[in-house]
């Protein structure tokens, strides 16, 4: 150690019990002659002790039982919401599967895929509607930015998954050994082309745009 900056790092290491005997002795020696490093040592010790003391004082008077109850009630609310969402999705899916295919069997892959696409469109539209509402509320910019950031992060990770999902129709086609000579095979190919095209578009055009937006919105 030769510079004050190196000795200051050693001060931090000593404060946290990570400095070995030889450098500790060199540090002690330096501290006797360097006022600047001594003042850094005082500041480091003082700020850390104060932060520690404050947290201890605050948490001593904390009602931990009430906090545990808050956590458990939030967990229960989350469970309930998930169940509600699954219920709503199932309710939406059933009539759609019957309706889109004009009463064709429920196990039809095509009608299921169409229903999922429809629901995805509804979800995207409703979430942009929610953003608009939040953005229009005065003084809610923090909440809006927070949700928008989280949403962008989710979109980016979904774009990756969408690429994988877009290969599913082709896998299904290969697995069933079907060609475009049957109506069923043709509809799967159609679906495959649409999903692959959409996923590639999202990956190459939308994903970089979302990433740029996210970079500018980072706190």
């Amino acid at each position: 150690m030769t510079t004050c900056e190196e000795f200051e790092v050693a001060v931090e290491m000593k404060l946290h019990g990570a400095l070995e005997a030889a450098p500790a002795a060199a540090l002690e020696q330096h501290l006797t002659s360097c006022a600047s490093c001594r003042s850094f040592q005082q500041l480091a010790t003082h700020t850390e002790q104060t932060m520690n003391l404050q947290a201890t004082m605050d948490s001593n008077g904390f009602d931990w039982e009430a906090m545990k109850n808050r956590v458990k009630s939030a967990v229960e609310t989350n469970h309930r919401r998930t169940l509600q969402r699954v219920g709503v999705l199932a309710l939406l899916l059933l009539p759609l599967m019957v309706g889109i295919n004009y009463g064709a069997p429920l196990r039809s892959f095509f009608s299921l895929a169409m229903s999922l696409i429809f629901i995805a469109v509804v979800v995207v539209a409703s979430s942009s509607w929610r953003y608009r509402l939040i953005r229009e509320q005065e003084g809610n910019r923090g909440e809006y930015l927070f949700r928008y950031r989280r949403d962008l992060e989710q979109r980016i990770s979904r774009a990756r998954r969408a690429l994988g999902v877009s290969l599913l129709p082709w896998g299904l086609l290969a697995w069933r050994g079907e060609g475009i000579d049957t109506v069923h095979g043709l509809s799967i190919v159609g679906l495959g082309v649409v999903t692959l095209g959409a996923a590639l578009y999202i990956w190459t055009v939308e994903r970089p745009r979302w990433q740029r937006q996210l970079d500018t919105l980072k706190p």
Partner: protein
Amino acid sequence: MTELSPYDEAALLAQARSSSATEREQAFNALFTATRRDVYALCLHLCGNRSDAEDAVQECFVGVHQALPRFRGESRLSTWVYRIALRSAWQVRARHPRGREDLEQGLGKPSDAPAPDDVASARQQTRQIHAAMQKLSEEHRTVLSLFAIDGLGHKQVADVLGIAEGTVWSRLHSARKRLAAELLQAPAVAC
């Protein structure tokens, strides 16, 4: 802090993965008791006020409760909890970017009873430090807050942050210098 030994952690993890809901609940309760003080301290330093810190603590433990049965043990359990705490505190902060008055509200609140001089002075210093902390970058605030947790060594801090052990010291040093600069600029806070 209520230190969790590797043996405690292993037993707790086995309990958390149990098929019995009662056992899972017991595992969560034990983890909550062992880490709550540190999680609170971390959230308090990162958020800068008590009400946001409480929200962050709640979010953190909700996340822990939901993800505990799926935790694969790739790090120490407490390290994993601190990472969730950091994320929760950042999210709460992002939701409530507030002014300085708000940041100081609820922090070392003076009680109705007159405080002795040393307590009052400690409060004033705490407020100054917290106000200065809020002006630092997220990276600097985080490293200072982690090191302020009693008993958390530099290896675990590096693990929580996902950086090399050597980098931890230089980051802590530059954060402390920044904090010192902010403290020098800060006007004295009245009691």
